């Protein structure tokens, strides 16, 4: 958005600015170094006597041969994993050594989410809720990352991170209340299904516009840093959303403003029907991190321990060093994009089946537990039954509940209700008095 015409004067200003900045830098360098161990390179002090580039925009040597930098997309950033597809720990030094109780909790939260997904997906097919998005194949990314956070850490999500809420103990009743938009919904029935939010669980309410949460997370992390309260912020998004301008904004702001923030990208191969080779031509999302001066890693998103380890370490360092981290979790979107999408129109059933049957975060963790004698067929059967019962109870309860009062259409637009909105609300009620038989008033709270 730069206006032309500014450059000449800026150039003149620039010379003075550089000298001032150099002096300032010399004074602040030790503290900054301590702050950011291996962060962005600081520029050299201004010194005309050296035969080195003096450009303020980068710290680099001259070269006397013409050579373009090649992107490395054939052999990309490696995928960190802790256990094999059979649930075996590959490198014992990377084993997070989580207790049986913790691992069982991981498994139960992942499978409970899976059960809820199946029931709500079916309920949409039957027209009982208007819309749904499943989390199939990505359960491991949610639970592994959520477990590595403090419960005070603020979460910004996209829409396919219900497992984070599940891990934090969001009640099934409230998941259902949101999808049914009934009178128990904390969001007062205003948003589409799966747009969850919880103040108590520090999970910022989901909105549909993609990537808008990314620079917001940077701002929240900046505020959290100023509070000095040992908190971090995590921000989830898909690889498709990473193409939005807001992703660029958020990455760059969090690096230059030194925000304790974890960017967590779920790279599941598709943005609705668009495969990644139509989304980007670089080495995925992780390769972009270093370009912003951001520490980055790629993990196996179907390996809950790999996700856990990466998030745990990123969180520790983000808070200690006030700098952002980027985690790209490689997964596969096993389900349709949403209930409004039939993914067989753009990808093969074989491809989907591979990920569902051969490389699934839930089955991998189950292998791990079985090998340790922490889980068996009986327990599996019992838990399946029990989790199904829990979900069905919440489901039936949510379905029976009335919708919120129609009045709630007018509140919270502003903190206070404005005179104009008061008039419009009164006008609606007068209208409903006269034409009530044309409206579904009996479904709503009085």
């Amino acid at each position, binding site marked *: 958005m730069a206006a032309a015409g500014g450059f000449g004067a800026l150039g003149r200003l620039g010379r003075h600015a550089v000298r001032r900045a150099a002096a300032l830098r010399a004074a602040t360098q030790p503290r900054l170094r301590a702050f950011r161990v291996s962060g962005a390179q600081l520029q050299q002090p201004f010194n005309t006597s050296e035969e080195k580039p003096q450009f303020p925009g980068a710290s680099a040597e001259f070269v006397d041969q013409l050579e373009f930098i090649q992107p490395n997309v054939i052999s990309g950033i490696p995928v960190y994993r802790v256990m094999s597809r059979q649930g075996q720990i590959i490198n014992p030094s990377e084993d997070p050594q989580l207790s049986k109780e913790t691992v069982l909790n991981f498994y139960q939260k992942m499978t409970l989410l899976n059960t809820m997904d199946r029931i709500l997906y079916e309920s949409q097919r039957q027209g009982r809720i208007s819309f749904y998005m499943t989390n199939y194949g990505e359960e491991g990314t949610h639970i592994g990352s959520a477990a590595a956070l403090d419960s005070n850490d603020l979460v910004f999500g996209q829409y396919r991170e219900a497992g984070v809420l599940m891990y934090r103990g969001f009640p099934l009743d409230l998941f259902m209340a949101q999808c049914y938009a009934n009178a128990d919904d904390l969001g007062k029935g205003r948003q589409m299904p799966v747009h969850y939010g919880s103040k108590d669980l520090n999970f910022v309410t989901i909105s549909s516009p993609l990537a808008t949460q990314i620079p917001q997370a940077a*701002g929240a992390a900046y*505020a959290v840093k*100023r*509070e000095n309260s040992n908190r971090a912020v995590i921000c989830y998004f898909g690889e498709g959303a990473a193409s939005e301008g807001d992703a*660029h904004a958020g990455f760059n702001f969090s690096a230059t403003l030194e925000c304790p923030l974890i960017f967590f990208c779920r790279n599941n191969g598709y943005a609705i029907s668009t495969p990644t080779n139509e989304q980007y031509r670089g080495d995925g999302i992780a390769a972009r991190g270093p370009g912003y001066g951001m520490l980055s890693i790629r993990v196996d998103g179907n390996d809950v321990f790999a996700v856990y380890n990466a998030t745990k370490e990123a969180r520790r360092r983000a808070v200690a060093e006030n700098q952002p981290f980027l985690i790209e979790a490689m997964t596969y979107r096993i389900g349709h994009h949403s209930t409004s999408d039939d993914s067989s129109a753009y990808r093969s059933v074989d491809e989907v089946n591979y990920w569902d049957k051969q490389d699934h975060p839930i089955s991998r963790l189950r292998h791990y537990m079985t090998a340790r004698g922490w889980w068996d067929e009986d327990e599996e059967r019992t838990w399946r039954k029990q989790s199904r019962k829990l979900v069905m109870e919440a489901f039936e309860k949510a379905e029976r509940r009335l919708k919120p009062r129609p009045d709630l259409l007018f509140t919270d637009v502003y903190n206070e209700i404005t005179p104009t909105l008061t008039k419009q609300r009164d006008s609606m009620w007068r209208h409903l008095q006269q034409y009530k038989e044309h409206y579904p008033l009996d479904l709503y709270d009085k």
Partner: protein
Amino acid sequence: MAAAAARFLLGSVHSRAAATAVALGTHGGPGGALLKGAAARRSGRAAQRRYAAHFTFQPDPVPTKYGPTQKMNLFQSVTSALDNTLASDPTAVIFGEDVAFGGVFRCTVGLRDKYGKDRVFNTPLCEQGIVGFGIGVAVAGATAIAEIQFADYIYPAFDQIVNEAAKYRYRSGNLFDCGNLTIRAPWGCVGHGSLYHSQSPEAFFAHCPGLKIVIPRSPVQAKGLLLSCIADKNPCIFFEPKILYRAAVEQVPTEPFHIPLSQAEVVLEGSDVTLVAWGTQVHVMREVATMAQEKLGVSCELIDLQTILPWDTDTVCKSVVKTGRLLISHEAPVTGGFAAEISARVQEECFLNLEAPIARVCGYDTPFPHIFEPFYIPDKWKCFDAVKRMINY
């Protein structure tokens, strides 16, 4: 962004001498010398007329109820409001492009030195990032004061403002909000700002429930209204008429004070015609009221709307019930401009009192032009003519 352009714009709003001083003070390089030479050569009536402002600023009476006052222009009164805020609210932060060294319009001069670089800081050059970042700061509970360098460059942040900031509280059922966010942006024509340093985008945002949009006409109004925006529990956009940054000077209270939002102010009482405007255009209308009195014997009631959204219907309608005639004027293009909303509403509420069609004197439905600015703006002669036709209707 357009740092240098900003200085040229500022230099031109008032006298030739001031323009020279600005050029000297800022650069002193070869460009500065050239400018100085050009200024020295400019003489005679052509140059004078070219730089004549289209309005005359009239200070309000010195406010007495808020304690001691100091002579300030509009940019200084903005700084004063920001200073008061940073002093009283430890969570408050100010950020945007080039705010750290004082801002291209000098609104943040001295604040970084006084309050620290973690509270007054530059961001990367990215408007959607600035507003998204500000929303995040506010969601986390801190006070965020974001600057967009020119209102013309607010559109990259339109999505964050309209889909996010405005809807945060509503969509979350009041679990989360960004009510602590204020976005400030220089606004309005400036003499030769052309397409992208002149715009008045308030009507784009007036169609968006959840936002407050506020525009002051003077240093006192700017400080009182900005402090209200910052304190308000809703996301606010505060547009600062940049032509007034240096041109408008009056006594402003040094202590914090608030002027309520969503309240229009009757600046002049009258009985024959109601004039409604905001920002710089209030000063144009004040001259129109004088001309109408002197040349036509017509008594005009002048209202400064101050808050565009949610706007003060009652004050405007009450006035029109009394006068029976309404002229609304704004710099922005007429089609879809905010005058259309005012006009439609007044027509609904005051149908039996209206004695002439409601008149709108606005910018034409073109982009804001460079060399044609004198013909584009709804100046006092266009407004005066509208009053004359309305009286003779």
